[in-house]
Every structure is written in structure tokens, then in C-alpha cells.
């Protein structure tokens, strides 16, 4: 198409108005003589275009809307919230909570003086209840988009050039979006296990493990990290015989403090989960009724065959950037598939930024949220803030495990002089009244300054309690700052205070 550029179009047209009633031909060269011409897109330029409507993407979109930017968010799933809301944190917590209730009614209420009759599991209803929670939250995000004037496009976006994104619309058709700034927030996907083809029925990732149609008789979990242990807990509580196979010598991943990890393993073992640590999975055979997994000691040793009705592959997640058309703009990923960014989330093309799972840092929803707010502040104000040293991790098993800052093995390796204060929940009044006393709070402080370096909790409500620890680390608190702060009685948080007191002085109740 031809376009008049520096002269208003209406003026150009009026210049060519002809008196005859017959159609007249206007030579484009005539227009060109009046003006300069070129080609241009019909797409409106947006201040910010975000590819991905997961936690990183939707939070950035809402924040940008609040900052008055004209923002568009492209999401292909059909619902907002990404992995976290749809097939991750949220549905897993629904299953964890309800399976814990079921397990408690079956095994724990009698001691508490509550005798329950016939207890039955209705898995279909359990799943429905999970789906209701998910649907409510994803719709809630859609509402927040409307409230904050975020344009939401359902479709798959890919780069045409450094400013233009082509969207294959979910409902069919195509459209183009042009952005002054672009954020890539396409998240991550489960890492497949070589040689085991995921069908989400018998060989499942966390996605399939959230939607099994019946409780399997047996389940092998490959990977003893947080996802594997949470989903393993769910199906173990519902009646499956669960075995966790982990390549490393400890469960919970490398971030978990070794002492806490051992304690968690002991407690989960007591709940019925078997563990095979330092064990490598060699391959699997899915031809029979049961899946046969060949395993051997990680450092070499005797082979063993494990049989299971369902195998959960939970060896980690990898960045998801497929189909983005990165090759069209010359962006490359590192050896682990992460998009390389600088400290302001910029790629080497500065107006294209990346946040969340598809770039550096832990793959955690709350880390992605922090980055999403910061990246919009960088765009709008030129300054943002995320403290990567104060990002908590939580494992929502029962008891929960939570930590923030450095663990003991890291501090040892770094040669830092530290002191430790601990307090067991068995000495905490509220844990006693709740008959839920497993676990402890472990606080690690700098030996010289008393500054808190790491906090590690295993116990009831650890995931909530770690917020206080994160605040303490964010603001450089000492253990004495916490120990001299009043904590309500009787609460679990008194264990937190007493662990702090145990660092610089002594706990009172232990």
C-alpha cells in the first residue's frame, strides 16, 4: 500500500479530486511527487508488549497498567497464570492440603478424641475442588487485567523483528503487535528424562501427576527435589506406595540445609515414602502392565529393577523459549537454555527484557513476581530492586520445609565463621497443643557481627514463618534484633524467636 507521509492524507486526496463522474486512475507516482512515501504497519505501537501471561508476565502487565503504560500481554494457554496457577503451585497446594486432611482423618483424629466413621476418598471431587481453586484464581487475574487496562491477546507470539510480534490467535487468524518495549516471560517446562517418553498417564511430569484419574498402587518419583517430594506426598497420603529415586545424596535439592534435609527424609520415611539416594536411573521399560525402571548406585554398583504403575519424572525444569522466533532478532540462549540478561533485565537488544523462569535465578513464582515489578520500574523509572540473597524457598510437605539465605554447607565451603541457634517445635507450646511437634528452627548468624546469614525451618507452618526470616535478611537484622522482638504467645513463631535467642544467648524453653 502507498502512504502519504508528511502531508495529511485528506489533503493528498483532495488534491486528486476530479470532476468527471467516471472512475479516475491516480498514479502513485503523483502522490510520491507530493510527498515522501514508504510502507508502514497498521499495528498500533504499544508502550510494552509482554509475551507470556504466567506469574512473571501477568504481574508485569498489571504493574505496567498501574504505571500508566499502554500494555499488551500475549498468552497462548487460554488462561492466565502460567504454570504456577494452572499446573503448578496452586493445584498442587490444593491437593496437598486436601490429601493431608484425608490422611489426618484416617490416621490422626482418633488420638485427638475425634472418632470418624466410614472415610472414603472421592478422587473426582478432590480434583474438582482443585480445579475450582485454579479457575477462580485465573479468572481473577483476567479481572485484574481489565481493571488495569491491560490488553490480553490469546495466542502464540513470535518475533518478526525487534519491535514487532506476530500473534497466531488461538481463535484463528493472525495479528501483529508492535512494542516500544518487549518483555519475554515465557517460563519453563518440565525437563524430560532421556529414554522415558512422557504420556502424562503412566509416565507423568508434575502436570500429569496433578490429574491422575485413580490412585496408583505404586509410584516411582525420579528426582527428590521439591516438586517430586510434594507430589510424592500427595499420592502416598492417598494410598500409593511411593519410592523416590534421587541421584544426589540428599533430598530437597542443593539449596536445602543438609541437617534439615536429613530430618525431612526421616519424617517422610515415617509417613511411608521410601528413598533411594545416590541412585541413578538407567532406563525404563513400559511394555508391561507395570513400568520397570533400571536403577544403579550413582557411583556404580549393582543394578536393581523397580516396578511402578506410574512414574513421575521430576528431575527439574528448563527454560521454555521454543517458537519465540529468537533467531529472527539474533537472540541466543546459554547452554542451559536461559536468555542472557544484564542487571536491568535487558538482553543485548536493550528494549527487549526477560524475567522469570526463562532467565537466570531460581525458578520460583515469587522470584518471578519480584522481577516483574522491578522490570516495569526499570522501564518506567529507570530503577528497580530485587535482592537475590533474600528469596525464600518452601517445600509444602507435612511438615513444611522453608529456608532463606545461606545454608550451613555453603557457609562451611566459603570459610565463613558462623554460630547456630536452634529450637525444636517439641518445646513450643502451640505445637504441643496442636499435637504437631516435628521439626525445628535453625538460625545461622555471623560469628562476629551476629548478622543473620541463613534461616532454615522444618515444621508446621514453616512456609508462613519464613516471611519473618526473609524480612530479617532483607534488612540485615541480627539474631538479637529478632530475639528482642515480642512474639505472641502461644504461637509457633515463638520457636523462631527462641532460635534467635539461642544464637546470641540461650533459649528460655529448651
Amino acid at each position, binding site marked *: 500500500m502507498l*502512504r502519504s507521509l*508528511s502531508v495529511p492524507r485528506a489533503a493528498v486526496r483532495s488534491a486528486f479530486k476530479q470532476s468527471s463522474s467516471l472512475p479516475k486512475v491516480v498514479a502513485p507516482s503523483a502522490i510520491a511527487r507530493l510527498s515522501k512515501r514508504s510502507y*508502514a504497519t497498521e*499495528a498500533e505501537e504499544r508502550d510494552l508488549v509482554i509475551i507470556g501471561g504466567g506469574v512473571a508476565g501477568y504481574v508485569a502487565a498489571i504493574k505496567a497498567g498501574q504505571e500508566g503504560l499502554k500494555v499488551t500481554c500475549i498468552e497462548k494457554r487460554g488462561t492466565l497464570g502460567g504454570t504456577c496457577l494452572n499446573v503448578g503451585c496452586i493445584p498442587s497446594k490444593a491437593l496437598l492440603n486436601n490429601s493431608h486432611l484425608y490422611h489426618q482423618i484416617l490416621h490422626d483424629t482418633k488420638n485427638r478424641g475425634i472418632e470418624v466413621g466410614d472415610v472414603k476418598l472421592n478422587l473426582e471431587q478432590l480434583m474438582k475442588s482443585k480445579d475450582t481453586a485454579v479457575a477462580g484464581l485465573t479468572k481473577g487475574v483476567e479481572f485484574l487485567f481489565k481493571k488495569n487496562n491491560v490488553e490480553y491477546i490469546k495466542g502464540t507470539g513470535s518475533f518478526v523483528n525487534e519491535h514487532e510480534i506476530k500473534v497466531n490467535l488461538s481463535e484463528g487468524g493472525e495479528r501483529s503487535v508492535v512494542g516500544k518495549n518487549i518483555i519475554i516471560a515465557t517460563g519453563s517446562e518440565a525437563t524430560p528424562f532421556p529414554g522415558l517418553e512422557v504420556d502424562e498417564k503412566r509416565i507423568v511430569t508434575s502436570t500429569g501427576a496433578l490429574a491422575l484419574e485413580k490412585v496408583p498402587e505404586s509410584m516411582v518419583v525420579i528426582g527428590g527435589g521439591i516438586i517430586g517430594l510434594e507430589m510424592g506426598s500427595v499420592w502416598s497420603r492417598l494410598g500409593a506406595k511411593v519410592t523416590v529415586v534421587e541421584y544426589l545424596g540428599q533430598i530437597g535439592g542443593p539449596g536445602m540445609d543438609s541437617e534439615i534435609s536429613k530430618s525431612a527424609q526421616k519424617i517422610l520415611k515415617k509417613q511411608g515414602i521410601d528413598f533411594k539416594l545416590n541412585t541413578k536411573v538407567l532406563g525404563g521399560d513400559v511394555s508391561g502392565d507395570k513400568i520397570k525402571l533400571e536403577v544403579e548406585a550413582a557411583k556404580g554398583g549393582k543394578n536393581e529393577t523397580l516396578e511402578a504403575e506410574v512414574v513421575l519424572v521430576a528431575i527439574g525444569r528448563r527454560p521454555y523459549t521454543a517458537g519465540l522466533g529468537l533467531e529472527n532478532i539474533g537472540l541466543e540462549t546459554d547452554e542451559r537454555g536461559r536468555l542472557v540478561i544484564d542487571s536491568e*533485565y535487558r538482553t543485548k537488544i*536493550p528494549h527487549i527484557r526477560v524475567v522469570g523462569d526463562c532467565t537466570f535465578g531460581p525458578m520460583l513464582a515469587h522470584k518471578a513476581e519480584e522481577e516483574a515489578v522491578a522490570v516495569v520500574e526499570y522501564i518506567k523509572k*529507570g530503577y528497580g530492586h530485587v535482592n537475590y540473597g533474600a528469596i525464600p524457598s518452601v517445600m509444602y510437605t507435612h511438615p513444611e520445609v522453608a529456608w532463606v539465605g545461606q545454608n550451613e554447607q555453603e557457609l562451611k565451603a566459603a570459610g565463613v565463621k558462623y554460630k547456630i541457634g536452634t529450637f525444636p517445635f517439641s518445646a513450643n507450646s502451640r505445637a504441643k497443643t496442636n499435637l504437631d511437634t516435628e521439626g525445628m528452627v535453625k538460625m545461622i548468624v555471623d560469628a562476629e557481627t551476629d548478622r543473620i546469614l541463613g534461616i532454615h525451618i522444618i515444621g508446621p507452618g514453616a512456609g508462613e514463618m519464613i516471611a519473618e526470616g526473609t524480612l530479617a535478611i532483607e534488612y540485615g537484622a541480627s539474631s538479637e*534484633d529478632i530475639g528482642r522482638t515480642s512474639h505472641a504467645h502461644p504461637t509457633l513463631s515463638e520457636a523462631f524467636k527462641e532460635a534467635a535467642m539461642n544464637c546470641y544467648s540461650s533459649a528460655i524453653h529448651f
Partner: protein
Amino acid sequence: MFATKVLRASAAAHAERTPMIKFLGKRTIPSSIDHTPHAHPASPTHELPAGFGSSPSFSSYRQQAQQHGPLGKAGKSGGIGDRSGHSLGPVTPAKGEYFDRNELPARFRRRPLDIAEIDAIETGGATLVC
């Protein structure tokens, strides 16, 4: 009156310890910020790849590029870059006005007919099947 002040002064005088948490006050954006690319704090290598940030971006290129005048918004001459295509309105000609296809660049013109196609048209397609 000023009881809190007095208490605080007294407490300070007898303080055995100084809290490490301090009141930071309302957050402000630093007056001077270095925007040159630095390695991301969570980067495993703690360094940026060679050439990162040194090649001009399309945005910066657009600031200086010329095509019938400056492309970038920084251009003050009222060039193409000053207004989005959308804001210029529809590009279709008014009723009764037409663009001549032959004046367009070659890729938009009709493709020339070859002999076989001319024959096919003239024979009603018979040459294609006979």
C-alpha cells in the same frame, strides 16, 4: 510531654546494643544511576558475554537512521518516524479513486502471462488437457 523523646534518650544513654535493623525512610530513586550493562546478580558466570550491549540496538539505530528524513522520534523535521502508521488513518483510496498497479514496485504488479497460460485462456483450458 515529649515522653517518648525522653524515654528514647534515656534508653539510648543506657543502650547495651544497637539494633542492626534501621529505619530507612521513604524509598527514593538514586539521583545518579549507571545504566551501562552489568552482569545479572543471579548470572552463573557473573559476566556478560563478549559484545553484550556494544552492538547498537534497533531502537538506537532508529534514532539516527534516515529514510526520506529521520526515522526516529528524535527527528524534528516531522518525518515518518514522528507518527505511527495507525495514526495516519486508513490507506485505502477514497471512493472513485484507484491506484495504478503498474506504478507499484515490481513485486506488487501482475505477473506476466506466459505463452501456455495465454493459450489456456484462449482455448478455454483445452490446451491443458489435450
